[in-house]
């Protein structure tokens, strides 16, 4: 389950921010390690909603620092 989410998130990261799928591992920080800026985070949130049906409002988005945080959020909020 969490592998599926990680793979789906890796696809989004590749498309939105050009991150190689192999680099999209749970411990990575979006801004520090993957060079994803705040506007790309918004695009990632949009694509997460399209792909997983999980909306990430701005205040929640601010708490998502790592790929692992995103996986946890999606897992916990998936219907």
């Amino acid at each position, binding site marked *: 389950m969490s592998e599926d989410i990680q793979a789906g998130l890796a696809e989004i990261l590749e498309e939105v921010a050009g991150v190689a799928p192999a680099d999209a591992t749970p411990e990575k920080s979006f801004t520090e390690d993957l060079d994803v*800026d*705040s*506007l790309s*985070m*918004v*695009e990632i*949130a*949009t694509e997460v909603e399209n792909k997983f049906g999980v909306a990430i409002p*701005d205040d929640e*988005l601010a708490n998502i620092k790592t790929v692992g945080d995103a996986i946890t959020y999606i897992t916990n909020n998936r219907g």
Partner: protein
Amino acid sequence: MTAIQLKTGAPGARILGFGDYRPRRRVTNDELSQVMDTNDEWIQSRVGIAERRWASDDETLVEMATAAGGKALAASGLAPDEVDMVVLATASLEYPIPGIGPQVAHRLGIPRPGAFDLNAGCAGFCYSLEMASNAVRAGTARNVLVVGAERLSDVTDQTDRATAVIFADGAGAVVVGASDEPGIGPVAWGSDGDQYSAIEMVAGNGGKMIMAGQAVYRWATTKLTAALEEAMAAAGVGPEDIDVFAPHQANLRIIESMHKRLGFPERTVVARDIVTTGNTSAASIPLALSALLESGQAKSGDLALVLGYGAGLTFAGQVLRLP
């Protein structure tokens, strides 16, 4: 009982001519890096702006609006007394009273037109265009001068890297007149007042602008595609018919995102005036279209899709036939 008579208007309205005014002073990203914690790479990657124009003291809102309006009048081939209405779109008056529409009209020698200011933030130009088109079609005015003019450098904290790198100054104008063939399509407009605080000037910030960049970016890249599609559908055209895509020049990444989502053909020219002009709010669309017409990238008879959006939050889009 005596019935109230109505005037007879024109079957359609179109843009007769464009005019623009760009302030003399170019402000580069390197110049801004000296007064705030930013750099050229950061600015270009976030908003796509390489330089912007900031007005000098003598380039007041009235001066810039008059210059752009005068050029639009000249381009339209009309005499000032053929204009019956002036709509001045701005959100950056130093003081709100009086509005500057009447003064700009007076400076241009337009005798006693209906004249007023319209504040719909960065959507102001497209809202004003709808007013102008309706007035011509209702017989309220033979011709209407629409000016978008801003001095956002006045209302921006020039040490705040979230806003100072984006907002800029300038004016753009059009004259709208009657035509048998409609040259201004039905407006697709609306507002999202629940997000009123996403872009605002507040006393707590010294009266300067603050912007929730992420919220605005999310709104622009997710909600506004529908407005663009609605504007095309209402005009009876599709993406394949659009020669020029000129959305409000807010952020190059929003422009590219909208462009990608709409699926225009390869030949569609995309306005990227923001790169050298910055975000000039209500002035950005006429400035961008003026530049494309001047450079020959857009030509007379082209179909353009425009969309203004910003503070309010407000949005308005139309399909236009370029003069």
